[in-house]
Protein backbone atom coordinates (compact mmCIF):
# COMPACT_ATOMS: atom_id res chain seq x y z
CA UNK A 1 0.00 0.00 0.00
CA UNK A 2 2.86 2.35 0.90
CA UNK A 3 4.58 1.60 -2.42
CA UNK A 4 1.30 2.23 -4.23
CA UNK A 5 0.99 5.60 -2.51
CA UNK A 6 4.55 6.50 -3.42
CA UNK A 7 3.91 5.48 -7.03
CA UNK A 8 0.81 7.67 -7.13
CA UNK A 9 2.79 10.57 -5.67
CA UNK A 10 5.51 10.11 -8.24
CA UNK A 11 2.99 9.98 -11.09
CA UNK A 12 1.50 13.22 -9.82
CA UNK A 13 4.97 14.76 -9.60
CA UNK A 14 5.76 13.79 -13.21
CA UNK A 15 2.52 15.30 -14.46
CA UNK A 16 3.00 18.33 -12.23
CA UNK A 17 6.61 19.01 -13.22
CA UNK A 18 5.89 20.94 -16.38
CA UNK A 19 4.58 24.49 -16.19
CA UNK A 20 4.20 27.27 -18.73
CA UNK A 21 7.88 28.21 -18.40
CA UNK A 22 8.97 24.67 -19.31
CA UNK A 23 6.54 24.57 -22.22
CA UNK A 24 7.67 27.90 -23.65
CA UNK A 25 11.42 27.55 -23.16
CA UNK A 26 11.82 23.88 -24.09
CA UNK A 27 9.90 24.09 -27.36
CA UNK A 28 11.47 27.45 -28.28
CA UNK A 29 14.96 26.12 -27.47
CA UNK A 30 14.31 23.10 -29.70
CA UNK A 31 13.01 25.32 -32.52
CA UNK A 32 16.06 27.60 -32.27
CA UNK A 33 18.93 25.23 -31.50
CA UNK A 34 17.58 21.75 -32.20
CA UNK A 35 18.71 19.31 -29.53
CA UNK A 36 21.87 21.21 -28.58
CA UNK A 37 20.52 22.36 -25.22
CA UNK A 38 19.25 19.04 -23.87
CA UNK A 39 22.22 18.97 -21.48
CA UNK A 40 20.93 22.13 -19.79
CA UNK A 41 17.67 20.35 -18.93
CA UNK A 42 19.71 17.64 -17.19
CA UNK A 43 21.56 20.29 -15.17
CA UNK A 44 18.27 22.01 -14.33
CA UNK A 45 16.55 18.81 -13.27
CA UNK A 46 19.44 17.76 -11.03
CA UNK A 47 19.39 21.31 -9.62
CA UNK A 48 15.72 21.19 -8.70
CA UNK A 49 16.24 17.74 -7.16
CA UNK A 50 19.11 19.06 -5.02
CA UNK A 51 17.19 22.18 -4.00
CA UNK A 52 13.86 20.52 -3.24
CA UNK A 53 15.45 17.56 -1.45
CA UNK A 54 17.23 20.02 0.87
CA UNK A 55 14.01 21.99 1.43
CA UNK A 56 12.02 18.81 2.15
CA UNK A 57 14.70 17.60 4.55
CA UNK A 58 14.83 20.94 6.37
CA UNK A 59 11.02 20.89 6.62
CA UNK A 60 10.98 17.31 7.92
CA UNK A 61 13.77 17.93 10.45
CA UNK A 62 12.71 21.37 11.70
CA UNK A 63 9.05 21.68 10.72
CA UNK A 64 9.94 24.94 8.94
CA UNK A 65 9.22 25.89 5.35
CA UNK A 66 11.35 28.11 3.10
CA UNK A 67 10.28 31.57 4.30
CA UNK A 68 10.36 30.57 7.97
CA UNK A 69 13.97 29.63 7.34
CA UNK A 70 14.73 32.77 5.32
CA UNK A 71 13.48 35.09 8.05
CA UNK A 72 15.20 33.12 10.77
CA UNK A 73 18.52 32.90 8.94
CA UNK A 74 18.89 36.33 7.29
CA UNK A 75 16.71 38.51 9.54
CA UNK A 76 13.71 40.71 8.82
CA UNK A 77 15.24 43.42 6.62
CA UNK A 78 17.22 41.22 4.22
CA UNK A 79 14.44 38.64 4.36
CA UNK A 80 11.91 41.28 3.36
CA UNK A 81 13.88 41.99 0.18
CA UNK A 82 13.86 38.29 -0.61
CA UNK A 83 10.14 38.10 0.08
CA UNK A 84 9.33 41.06 -2.19
CA UNK A 85 11.43 39.62 -5.03
CA UNK A 86 9.84 36.19 -4.62
CA UNK A 87 6.32 37.63 -4.52
CA UNK A 88 6.84 39.74 -7.65
CA UNK A 89 8.12 36.74 -9.58
CA UNK A 90 5.31 34.60 -8.16
CA UNK A 91 2.68 37.09 -9.25
CA UNK A 92 4.15 37.36 -12.75
CA UNK A 93 4.21 33.57 -13.01
CA UNK A 94 0.68 33.26 -11.68
CA UNK A 95 -0.62 35.81 -14.21
CA UNK A 96 1.20 34.00 -17.03
CA UNK A 97 -0.21 30.63 -15.95
CA UNK A 98 -3.75 32.00 -15.73
CA UNK A 99 -3.37 33.53 -19.18
CA UNK A 100 -2.14 30.10 -20.31
CA UNK A 101 -5.25 28.41 -18.90
CA UNK A 102 -7.49 30.88 -20.73
CA UNK A 103 -5.64 30.40 -24.04
CA UNK A 104 -5.86 26.63 -23.65
CA UNK A 105 -9.58 26.80 -22.93
CA UNK A 106 -10.01 29.08 -25.93
CA UNK A 107 -8.17 26.63 -28.19
CA UNK A 108 -10.49 23.89 -26.91
CA UNK A 109 -13.77 25.82 -26.95
CA UNK A 110 -13.43 28.82 -29.24
CA UNK A 111 -14.97 31.09 -26.57
CA UNK A 112 -13.69 34.67 -26.05
CA UNK A 113 -10.34 34.93 -24.26
CA UNK A 114 -11.34 37.52 -21.65
CA UNK A 115 -14.41 35.56 -20.55
CA UNK A 116 -12.21 32.54 -20.16
CA UNK A 117 -9.74 34.48 -17.98
CA UNK A 118 -12.59 35.27 -15.58
CA UNK A 119 -13.84 31.67 -15.79
CA UNK A 120 -10.33 30.40 -15.02
CA UNK A 121 -10.00 32.70 -12.00
CA UNK A 122 -13.39 31.63 -10.62
CA UNK A 123 -12.61 27.96 -11.24
CA UNK A 124 -9.22 28.26 -9.52
CA UNK A 125 -10.77 29.98 -6.50
CA UNK A 126 -13.40 27.24 -6.17
CA UNK A 127 -10.90 24.43 -6.64
CA UNK A 128 -8.51 25.87 -4.05
CA UNK A 129 -11.37 26.55 -1.64
CA UNK A 130 -13.05 23.13 -1.78
CA UNK A 131 -10.36 20.63 -2.80
CA UNK A 132 -8.02 18.97 -0.35
CA UNK A 133 -4.25 19.21 -0.71
CA UNK A 134 -3.92 15.56 -1.79
CA UNK A 135 -6.59 15.84 -4.42
CA UNK A 136 -5.19 19.08 -5.82
CA UNK A 137 -1.89 17.31 -6.35
CA UNK A 138 -3.48 14.21 -7.86
CA UNK A 139 -6.05 15.80 -10.17
CA UNK A 140 -3.61 18.18 -11.80
CA UNK A 141 -0.66 15.78 -11.70
CA UNK A 142 -2.57 12.96 -13.41
CA UNK A 143 -4.16 15.37 -15.91
CA UNK A 144 -0.70 16.68 -16.72
CA UNK A 145 0.33 13.16 -17.71
CA UNK A 146 -1.55 13.79 -20.99
CA UNK A 147 1.60 15.72 -21.90
CA UNK A 148 3.16 12.32 -22.53
CA UNK A 149 1.58 12.83 -25.96
CA UNK A 150 4.67 14.95 -26.66
CA UNK A 151 6.90 11.94 -25.96
CA UNK A 152 4.97 9.96 -28.58
CA UNK A 153 5.05 12.97 -30.91
CA UNK A 154 8.81 13.30 -30.47
CA UNK A 155 9.32 9.66 -31.50
CA UNK A 156 6.83 9.89 -34.37
CA UNK A 157 8.62 12.93 -35.80
CA UNK A 158 11.64 10.67 -36.30
CA UNK A 159 14.42 12.90 -35.03
CA UNK A 160 18.01 11.97 -35.76
CA UNK A 161 18.70 10.08 -32.53
CA UNK A 162 22.45 10.56 -32.97
CA UNK A 163 21.89 14.33 -32.90
CA UNK A 164 19.57 13.92 -29.90
CA UNK A 165 22.24 11.93 -28.03
CA UNK A 166 24.89 14.55 -28.82
CA UNK A 167 22.60 17.17 -27.31
CA UNK A 168 23.31 15.71 -23.88
CA UNK A 169 26.96 16.69 -24.26
CA UNK A 170 27.58 20.45 -23.93
CA UNK A 171 28.70 21.89 -27.24
CA UNK A 172 28.23 25.09 -29.20
CA UNK A 173 27.27 25.00 -32.87
CA UNK A 174 25.86 28.44 -33.49
CA UNK A 175 26.87 31.84 -34.74
CA UNK A 176 24.85 33.45 -31.95
CA UNK A 177 26.44 32.36 -28.66
CA UNK A 178 24.57 35.03 -26.67
CA UNK A 179 21.22 33.64 -27.77
CA UNK A 180 22.44 30.15 -26.91
CA UNK A 181 23.37 31.37 -23.41
CA UNK A 182 20.03 33.16 -23.04
CA UNK A 183 18.18 29.93 -23.77
CA UNK A 184 20.49 28.00 -21.43
CA UNK A 185 19.65 30.47 -18.65
CA UNK A 186 15.93 30.27 -19.46
CA UNK A 187 15.92 26.48 -19.46
CA UNK A 188 17.70 26.39 -16.11
CA UNK A 189 15.25 28.94 -14.74
CA UNK A 190 12.27 27.02 -16.08
CA UNK A 191 13.50 23.77 -14.51
CA UNK A 192 14.46 25.35 -11.18
CA UNK A 193 11.37 27.50 -10.70
CA UNK A 194 11.47 28.62 -7.05
CA UNK A 195 7.71 28.45 -6.44
CA UNK A 196 7.87 24.68 -6.89
CA UNK A 197 10.24 24.51 -3.95
CA UNK A 198 8.22 26.91 -1.77
CA UNK A 199 5.17 24.77 -2.44
CA UNK A 200 7.03 21.53 -1.88
CA UNK A 201 8.48 22.53 1.49
CA UNK A 202 5.21 24.08 2.66
CA UNK A 203 3.44 20.87 1.66
CA UNK A 204 5.95 18.88 3.70
CA UNK A 205 5.13 20.99 6.76
CA UNK A 206 1.39 20.73 6.04
CA UNK A 207 1.63 16.95 5.81
CA UNK A 208 3.60 16.95 9.05
CA UNK A 209 6.65 15.20 7.69
CA UNK A 210 9.13 14.00 10.27
CA UNK A 211 12.61 12.57 9.81
CA UNK A 212 10.86 9.23 9.17
CA UNK A 213 9.64 10.70 5.88
CA UNK A 214 13.08 11.53 4.55
CA UNK A 215 13.01 8.44 2.30
CA UNK A 216 9.72 9.62 0.82
CA UNK A 217 11.24 13.10 0.37
CA UNK A 218 14.19 11.66 -1.51
CA UNK A 219 11.98 9.43 -3.69
CA UNK A 220 9.59 12.26 -4.54
CA UNK A 221 12.39 14.67 -5.39
CA UNK A 222 14.61 12.29 -7.32
CA UNK A 223 12.12 10.11 -9.16
CA UNK A 224 9.31 12.64 -9.53
CA UNK A 225 11.41 15.53 -10.78
CA UNK A 226 13.80 13.19 -12.59
CA UNK A 227 11.04 11.59 -14.64
CA UNK A 228 9.33 14.97 -15.00
CA UNK A 229 12.45 16.11 -16.81
CA UNK A 230 11.66 13.43 -19.39
CA UNK A 231 8.70 15.58 -20.49
CA UNK A 232 11.05 18.53 -20.96
CA UNK A 233 13.25 16.40 -23.23
CA UNK A 234 10.18 15.39 -25.24
CA UNK A 235 9.10 19.01 -25.66
CA UNK A 236 12.54 20.12 -26.84
CA UNK A 237 12.90 17.19 -29.25
CA UNK A 238 9.45 17.94 -30.66
CA UNK A 239 10.40 21.59 -31.13
CA UNK A 240 13.68 20.62 -32.79
CA UNK A 241 12.27 17.93 -35.07
CA UNK A 242 9.22 19.89 -36.23
CA UNK A 243 10.05 23.58 -36.17
CA UNK A 244 13.82 24.00 -36.59
CA UNK A 245 14.12 23.15 -40.29
CA UNK A 246 10.99 25.09 -41.18
CA UNK A 247 12.27 28.24 -39.46
CA UNK A 248 9.20 28.40 -37.22
CA UNK A 249 9.43 30.39 -33.98
CA UNK A 250 6.78 28.88 -31.67
CA UNK A 251 5.56 32.11 -30.09
CA UNK A 252 2.11 30.88 -29.04
CA UNK A 253 0.77 28.14 -26.78
CA UNK A 254 -1.10 27.00 -29.90
CA UNK A 255 2.26 26.47 -31.62
CA UNK A 256 3.26 24.08 -28.85
CA UNK A 257 0.01 22.12 -29.25
CA UNK A 258 0.61 22.05 -33.01
CA UNK A 259 3.76 20.09 -32.18
CA UNK A 260 1.55 17.18 -31.11
CA UNK A 261 -1.11 17.70 -33.77
CA UNK A 262 1.18 17.43 -36.79
CA UNK A 263 2.50 13.94 -35.98
CA UNK A 264 -0.54 12.56 -34.08
CA UNK A 265 -3.59 14.33 -35.52
CA UNK A 266 -6.68 15.27 -33.51
CA UNK A 267 -5.99 12.84 -30.66
CA UNK A 268 -2.51 14.24 -30.20
CA UNK A 269 -3.85 17.79 -30.30
CA UNK A 270 -6.55 17.12 -27.72
CA UNK A 271 -4.18 15.24 -25.40
CA UNK A 272 -1.65 18.07 -25.70
CA UNK A 273 -4.25 20.74 -24.96
CA UNK A 274 -5.70 18.83 -22.00
CA UNK A 275 -2.18 18.12 -20.72
CA UNK A 276 -1.19 21.77 -21.05
CA UNK A 277 -4.43 22.82 -19.34
CA UNK A 278 -3.82 20.57 -16.33
CA UNK A 279 -0.10 21.30 -16.16
CA UNK A 280 -0.65 25.04 -16.29
CA UNK A 281 -3.71 24.81 -14.01
CA UNK A 282 -1.75 22.84 -11.42
CA UNK A 283 1.14 25.27 -11.65
CA UNK A 284 -1.31 28.17 -11.13
CA UNK A 285 -2.50 26.62 -7.88
CA UNK A 286 1.05 25.91 -6.74
CA UNK A 287 2.06 29.50 -7.52
CA UNK A 288 -1.03 30.96 -5.91
CA UNK A 289 -0.61 29.02 -2.69
CA UNK A 290 3.15 29.61 -2.68
CA UNK A 291 2.52 33.36 -2.64
CA UNK A 292 0.24 32.98 0.37
CA UNK A 293 2.59 30.52 2.09
CA UNK A 294 5.57 32.83 1.66
CA UNK A 295 3.88 35.88 3.13
CA UNK A 296 2.26 34.00 6.00
CA UNK A 297 5.44 32.16 6.93
CA UNK A 298 7.52 35.32 6.81
CA UNK A 299 5.10 37.33 8.95
CA UNK A 300 4.37 34.49 11.35
CA UNK A 301 0.67 34.18 10.49
CA UNK A 302 -1.36 31.02 10.77
CA UNK A 303 -1.20 29.29 7.41
CA UNK A 304 -2.09 26.10 5.63
CA UNK A 305 -4.53 24.38 3.34
CA UNK A 306 -5.37 21.93 6.13
CA UNK A 307 -6.74 24.79 8.21
CA UNK A 308 -10.17 26.18 7.54
CA UNK A 309 -10.48 29.69 6.10
CA UNK A 310 -11.39 30.98 9.56
CA UNK A 311 -8.42 29.11 11.05
CA UNK A 312 -5.99 30.94 8.75
CA UNK A 313 -7.90 34.07 7.63
CA UNK A 314 -4.91 36.18 6.56
CA UNK A 315 -3.48 33.26 4.57
CA UNK A 316 -6.84 32.81 2.83
CA UNK A 317 -7.19 36.52 2.17
CA UNK A 318 -3.67 36.62 0.71
CA UNK A 319 -4.32 33.99 -1.96
CA UNK A 320 -7.58 35.70 -2.85
CA UNK A 321 -5.84 39.06 -3.23
CA UNK A 322 -3.12 37.43 -5.35
CA UNK A 323 -5.81 35.96 -7.58
CA UNK A 324 -7.40 39.39 -8.06
CA UNK A 325 -4.02 41.00 -8.79
CA UNK A 326 -3.23 38.30 -11.35
CA UNK A 327 -6.65 38.88 -12.93
CA UNK A 328 -5.80 42.58 -13.26
CA UNK A 329 -2.48 41.79 -14.94
CA UNK A 330 -3.89 39.29 -17.45
CA UNK A 331 -6.84 41.52 -18.27
CA UNK A 332 -4.44 44.24 -19.50
CA UNK A 333 -3.99 42.01 -22.55
CA UNK A 334 -0.35 41.18 -21.82
CA UNK A 335 0.83 38.17 -23.84
CA UNK A 336 1.14 35.24 -21.38
CA UNK A 337 3.99 33.69 -23.37
CA UNK A 338 6.05 36.89 -23.22
CA UNK A 339 5.16 37.36 -19.57
CA UNK A 340 6.39 33.81 -18.95
CA UNK A 341 9.77 34.66 -20.44
CA UNK A 342 10.14 37.67 -18.15
CA UNK A 343 8.93 35.67 -15.14
CA UNK A 344 11.43 32.88 -15.79
CA UNK A 345 14.33 35.31 -16.24
CA UNK A 346 13.45 37.26 -13.09
CA UNK A 347 12.97 34.03 -11.14
CA UNK A 348 16.53 33.12 -12.04
CA UNK A 349 17.70 36.49 -10.75
CA UNK A 350 15.91 35.96 -7.42
CA UNK A 351 16.85 32.28 -7.07
CA UNK A 352 20.02 32.71 -4.95
CA UNK A 353 18.10 34.74 -2.36
CA UNK A 354 16.20 31.68 -1.15
CA UNK A 355 18.68 29.01 -2.21
CA UNK A 356 21.51 30.32 -0.04
CA UNK A 357 19.63 30.37 3.31
CA UNK A 358 18.31 26.87 2.65
CA UNK A 359 21.80 25.61 1.82
CA UNK A 360 23.19 27.20 4.99
CA UNK A 361 20.50 25.67 7.19
CA UNK A 362 20.67 22.25 5.51
CA UNK A 363 24.40 22.30 6.17
CA UNK A 364 24.12 23.41 9.80
CA UNK A 365 24.76 20.41 12.06
CA UNK A 366 23.73 22.35 15.16
CA UNK A 367 20.32 22.92 13.56
CA UNK A 368 19.77 19.77 11.53
CA UNK A 369 21.61 17.27 13.71
CA UNK A 370 22.05 13.93 11.96
CA UNK A 371 19.98 15.16 9.01
CA UNK A 372 22.41 17.85 7.89
CA UNK A 373 23.86 17.65 4.38
CA UNK A 374 26.10 14.67 3.83
CA UNK A 375 29.20 14.92 1.67
CA UNK A 376 27.36 14.41 -1.66
CA UNK A 377 24.52 16.82 -0.82
CA UNK A 378 27.07 19.36 0.30
CA UNK A 379 29.21 19.14 -2.82
CA UNK A 380 26.15 19.31 -5.06
CA UNK A 381 24.67 22.12 -2.97
CA UNK A 382 27.81 24.25 -3.26
CA UNK A 383 28.32 23.49 -6.97
CA UNK A 384 24.76 24.55 -7.64
CA UNK A 385 25.23 27.68 -5.57
CA UNK A 386 27.95 28.76 -7.99
CA UNK A 387 25.86 27.75 -11.01
CA UNK A 388 22.88 29.71 -9.67
CA UNK A 389 24.99 32.78 -8.88
CA UNK A 390 26.52 32.78 -12.37
CA UNK A 391 23.16 32.31 -14.04
CA UNK A 392 21.53 34.92 -11.83
CA UNK A 393 24.19 37.53 -12.62
CA UNK A 394 23.98 36.94 -16.37
CA UNK A 395 20.19 36.62 -16.80
CA UNK A 396 19.25 40.31 -17.19
CA UNK A 397 22.24 41.28 -19.38
CA UNK A 398 21.48 38.32 -21.67
CA UNK A 399 17.81 39.23 -21.80
CA UNK A 400 18.70 42.77 -22.91
CA UNK A 401 21.45 41.77 -25.33
CA UNK A 402 19.26 39.17 -27.07
CA UNK A 403 16.09 41.29 -27.05
CA UNK A 404 14.32 38.64 -24.93
CA UNK A 405 15.55 35.81 -27.10
CA UNK A 406 14.61 37.43 -30.40
CA UNK A 407 18.28 37.60 -31.44
Amino acid sequence: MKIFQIALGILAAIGGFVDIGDLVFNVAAGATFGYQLLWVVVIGVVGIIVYSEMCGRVAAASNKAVFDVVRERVGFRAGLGTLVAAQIVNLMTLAAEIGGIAICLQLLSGLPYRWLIVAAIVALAIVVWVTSFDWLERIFGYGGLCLLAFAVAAVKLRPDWGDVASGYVPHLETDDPLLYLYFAVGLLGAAMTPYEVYFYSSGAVEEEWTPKDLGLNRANAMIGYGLGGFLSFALMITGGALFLNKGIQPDFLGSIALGAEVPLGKIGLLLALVGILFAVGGASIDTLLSGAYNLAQFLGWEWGRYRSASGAPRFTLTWMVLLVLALGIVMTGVDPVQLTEYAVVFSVVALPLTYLPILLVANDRAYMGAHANGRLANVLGVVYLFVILAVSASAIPLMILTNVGQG
Partner: protein
Amino acid sequence: MSRVLLLLVGAALLTACNGGTVDRHALKQDSDAIDSLACEGALLARDVAKGRSTLYFARVHADELAVRASHFGDALSDRPTLEPIRAKVRDEARKAGRIARLLDELHRHPADGGVAERLRPRLEHEGDCS
Protein backbone atom coordinates in the same frame (compact mmCIF):
# COMPACT_ATOMS: atom_id res chain seq x y z
CA MET B 1 15.84 46.95 -2.95
CA SER B 2 13.90 49.72 -4.69
CA ARG B 3 16.92 50.36 -6.91
CA VAL B 4 16.99 46.72 -7.91
CA LEU B 5 13.28 46.83 -8.71
CA LEU B 6 13.73 50.00 -10.75
CA LEU B 7 16.56 48.36 -12.67
CA LEU B 8 14.43 45.29 -13.34
CA VAL B 9 11.49 47.35 -14.56
CA GLY B 10 13.82 49.48 -16.68
CA ALA B 11 15.37 46.39 -18.19
CA ALA B 12 11.95 44.95 -18.96
CA LEU B 13 10.85 48.17 -20.65
CA LEU B 14 14.08 48.42 -22.62
CA THR B 15 13.79 44.89 -23.94
CA ALA B 16 10.08 45.09 -24.55
CA CYS B 17 10.49 48.19 -26.67
CA ASN B 18 9.70 47.19 -30.25
CA GLY B 19 9.74 50.63 -31.79
CA GLY B 20 12.62 52.62 -33.22
CA THR B 21 14.06 52.87 -36.68
CA VAL B 22 13.98 49.82 -38.93
CA ASP B 23 17.57 48.95 -39.78
CA ARG B 24 18.91 45.88 -41.58
CA HIS B 25 19.03 43.82 -38.41
CA ALA B 26 15.46 44.71 -37.42
CA LEU B 27 14.26 44.01 -40.95
CA LYS B 28 15.92 40.58 -40.94
CA GLN B 29 14.35 39.78 -37.56
CA ASP B 30 10.89 40.87 -38.65
CA SER B 31 11.22 39.09 -41.97
CA ASP B 32 12.14 35.83 -40.20
CA ALA B 33 9.21 36.24 -37.83
CA ILE B 34 6.79 36.89 -40.71
CA ASP B 35 8.07 33.84 -42.61
CA SER B 36 7.67 31.81 -39.40
CA LEU B 37 4.00 32.82 -39.17
CA ALA B 38 3.41 31.79 -42.79
CA CYS B 39 5.12 28.42 -42.33
CA GLU B 40 3.24 27.70 -39.13
CA GLY B 41 0.03 28.64 -40.92
CA ALA B 42 0.96 26.24 -43.73
CA LEU B 43 1.40 23.40 -41.22
CA LEU B 44 -1.99 24.19 -39.72
CA ALA B 45 -3.60 24.41 -43.16
CA ARG B 46 -2.16 21.03 -44.08
CA ASP B 47 -3.71 19.48 -40.98
CA VAL B 48 -7.06 21.19 -41.63
CA ALA B 49 -7.01 19.91 -45.21
CA LYS B 50 -6.44 16.35 -43.96
CA GLY B 51 -9.10 16.63 -41.24
CA ARG B 52 -6.43 16.26 -38.57
CA SER B 53 -7.26 19.44 -36.63
CA THR B 54 -10.27 20.57 -34.64
CA LEU B 55 -12.57 23.41 -35.64
CA TYR B 56 -11.87 25.59 -32.60
CA PHE B 57 -8.13 25.05 -32.58
CA ALA B 58 -7.80 25.87 -36.27
CA ARG B 59 -10.04 28.92 -35.97
CA VAL B 60 -8.38 30.37 -32.87
CA HIS B 61 -4.78 29.60 -33.80
CA ALA B 62 -5.14 30.84 -37.37
CA ASP B 63 -6.54 34.06 -35.92
CA GLU B 64 -3.57 34.45 -33.54
CA LEU B 65 -1.18 34.01 -36.46
CA ALA B 66 -3.17 36.40 -38.67
CA VAL B 67 -3.29 39.13 -36.04
CA ARG B 68 0.45 38.87 -35.40
CA ALA B 69 1.22 39.02 -39.15
CA SER B 70 -1.05 42.03 -39.48
CA HIS B 71 0.75 43.76 -36.59
CA PHE B 72 4.08 43.18 -38.31
CA GLY B 73 2.70 44.65 -41.51
CA ASP B 74 1.38 47.74 -39.72
CA ALA B 75 4.59 48.22 -37.73
CA LEU B 76 6.79 47.96 -40.81
CA SER B 77 4.59 50.47 -42.62
CA ASP B 78 4.57 52.96 -39.75
CA ARG B 79 8.05 52.84 -38.26
CA PRO B 80 10.78 55.16 -39.55
CA THR B 81 13.11 53.34 -41.92
CA LEU B 82 16.70 53.79 -43.09
CA GLU B 83 16.64 55.15 -46.65
CA PRO B 84 18.71 52.39 -48.34
CA ILE B 85 16.30 49.66 -47.21
CA ARG B 86 13.04 51.57 -47.60
CA ALA B 87 11.91 49.55 -50.64
CA LYS B 88 12.70 46.24 -48.95
CA VAL B 89 10.79 47.26 -45.85
CA ARG B 90 7.78 48.23 -47.99
CA ASP B 91 7.94 44.84 -49.76
CA GLU B 92 8.11 43.06 -46.41
CA ALA B 93 5.15 45.05 -45.07
CA ARG B 94 3.11 44.07 -48.15
CA LYS B 95 4.12 40.44 -47.72
CA ALA B 96 3.04 40.52 -44.06
CA GLY B 97 -0.31 41.90 -45.20
CA ARG B 98 -0.75 39.10 -47.77
CA ILE B 99 0.13 36.46 -45.18
CA ALA B 100 -2.28 38.03 -42.70
CA ARG B 101 -5.09 37.83 -45.29
CA LEU B 102 -4.34 34.16 -46.09
CA LEU B 103 -4.30 33.28 -42.39
CA ASP B 104 -7.49 35.24 -41.84
CA GLU B 105 -9.15 33.18 -44.58
CA LEU B 106 -8.07 30.02 -42.77
CA HIS B 107 -9.48 31.51 -39.56
CA ARG B 108 -12.83 32.11 -41.28
CA HIS B 109 -12.94 28.60 -42.83
CA PRO B 110 -11.40 26.40 -40.13
CA ALA B 111 -13.21 23.24 -41.19
CA ASP B 112 -13.07 23.65 -44.96
CA GLY B 113 -10.48 21.23 -46.27
CA GLY B 114 -10.73 22.66 -49.79
CA VAL B 115 -9.92 26.19 -48.68
CA ALA B 116 -7.09 24.94 -46.47
CA GLU B 117 -5.66 22.90 -49.34
CA ARG B 118 -5.69 26.01 -51.53
CA LEU B 119 -4.09 28.20 -48.83
CA ARG B 120 -1.31 25.81 -47.85
CA PRO B 121 0.97 26.16 -50.91
CA ARG B 122 0.44 29.93 -50.97
CA LEU B 123 1.51 30.21 -47.34
CA GLU B 124 4.48 27.94 -48.01
CA HIS B 125 5.46 30.11 -50.96
CA GLU B 126 5.12 33.38 -49.02
CA GLY B 127 7.08 32.01 -46.06
CA ASP B 128 9.68 30.31 -48.26
CA CYS B 129 9.17 27.22 -46.08
CA SER B 130 11.57 24.34 -46.65
